[in-house]
């Protein structure tokens, strides 16, 4: 077999939106800087929508402001996290981007819950890379009693044995389950909104956006930090991405992992194009400008989407990353990421929400 990557070069359909003139873009970026840095107020969604239309040539200027906002609101520390798919595949949900749904013919073979020894070994690998956070992820709609017991046994064990903050991603939870996770010391609970409410039915039909929103609320009600991610590049419009930023504000996440669609074989979204690298930088910048105090984490799809622009994301508002492999796909080598952070002179450490 050829030992080379597939060339994934279909162009993303560009929405026919009128771009700002260079002069209007400069004015809009300057005004955003005054708001976020001098007045220290959030931008309105209308202001964000205007910034979304700066011309490609002004994206680095937009990114420079996003970087300044990140430094001012969050500091220069970068949070490094490792994630582990502790229960893979066979999921009853039909999230159209996901290779772990049992509804699609995917190459990913379902696997039962990993042994405790496997989970601890993965946590130790994560700690050895200087990470402070370790997320145990399960491909399920929500946890049953047996799964609750396993997770609640693992969380304090990983904390004590490895000394990492432990996050969990186990789907839709009830109030009682959220309470139990908080009691065993779950530091952050991950539950993604994925996309705007108005686009959600194009992505998932087995549960509603409102169910996701409710779980996000329960997590915060129980005093856990909410990690609430998004996935860009599924065909949502510019307006829907702005809508999503507004909806994220409503759930007040401590962390927002920013995923870019990496089209998976066998899924309904297998044929969608990758987001263009400069377009990805535009949206990293806009998410930072829209959510100035959150931990904005590089997550899935960054390697294939950004390619040579990965370091640029760290000066466009990103202040956290997933190191090493993802759930069913591999990442670039951790050494490359650590070298990148060292070259950028950004210290590694734990973060919590600025305000």
């Amino acid at each position, binding site marked *: *077999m*050829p*030992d*080379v*990557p*597939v060339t994934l070069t279909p162009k993303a359909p560009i929405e026919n939106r009128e771009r700002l003139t260079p002069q209007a873009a400069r004015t809009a970026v300057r005004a955003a800087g005054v708001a976020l840095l001098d007045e220290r107020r959030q931008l309105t969604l209308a202001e964000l929508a205007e910034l979304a239309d700066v011309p490609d040539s002004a994206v680095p200027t937009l990114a420079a402001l996003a970087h300044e906002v990140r430094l001012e609101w969050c500091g220069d520390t970068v949070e490094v996290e*490792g*994630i*582990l*798919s502790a229960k*893979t595949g066979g999921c009853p949900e039909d999230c159209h981007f996901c290779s772990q749904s049992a509804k699609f013919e995917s*190459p*990913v*073979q379902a*696997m039962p819950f*990993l042994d405790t020894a*496997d989970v601890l*070994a*993965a946590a130790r*690998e*994560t700690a*050895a*890379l200087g990470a402070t956070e370790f997320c145990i992820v399960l491909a399920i709609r929500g946890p049953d009693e047996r799964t609750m017991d396993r997770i609640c046994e693992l969380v304090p064990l990983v904390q004590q044995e490895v000394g990492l903050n432990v996050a969990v991603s186990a789907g839709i939870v009830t109030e009682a389950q959220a309470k139990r996770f908080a009691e065993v010391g779950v530091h952050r609970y991950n539950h993604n909104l994925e996309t705007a409410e108005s686009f959600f039915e194009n992505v998932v039909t087995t549960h509603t956006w409102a169910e996701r929103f409710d779980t996000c609320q329960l997590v915060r009600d129980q005093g856990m930090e909410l990690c609430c991610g998004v996935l860009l590049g599924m065909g949502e419009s510019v307006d829907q991405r702005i809508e999503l930023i507004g909806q994220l504000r409503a759930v007040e996440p401590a962390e927002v992992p920013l995923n870019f669609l990496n089209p998976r*074989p066998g899924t309904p979204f297998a044929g969608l194009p990758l987001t263009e690298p400069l377009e990805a930088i535009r949206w990293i910048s806009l998410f930072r400008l829209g959510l100035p105090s959150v931990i904005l984490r590089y997550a899935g799809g960054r*390697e*294939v989407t950004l390619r040579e622009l990965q370091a640029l994301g760290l000066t466009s508002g990103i202040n956290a990353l997933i*190191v*090493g*492999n*993802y*759930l*069913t*796909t*591999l*990442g*670039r080598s*951790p050494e490359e990421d650590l070298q990148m952070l060292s070259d950028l002179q950004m210290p590694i450490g734990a973060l919590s929400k600025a305000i």
Partner: protein
Amino acid sequence: MSDAYCRWCGTALAEHPDIQCRRELDPPRFCPECGRRLRVKVHTAGYEAACRDHGPLLD
């Protein structure tokens, strides 16, 4: 022994279309000996893949 099946799509190599179906950051998903789906454990610093019939996949 050379592969009989594509590790990334599971097609018999004798019938494999003339396209590169390996993606750089995907672990192997099919047994090169029998074409069945592999049990793959992905973790931070590596992965292990094994076939129910042919055991661990060695490079």
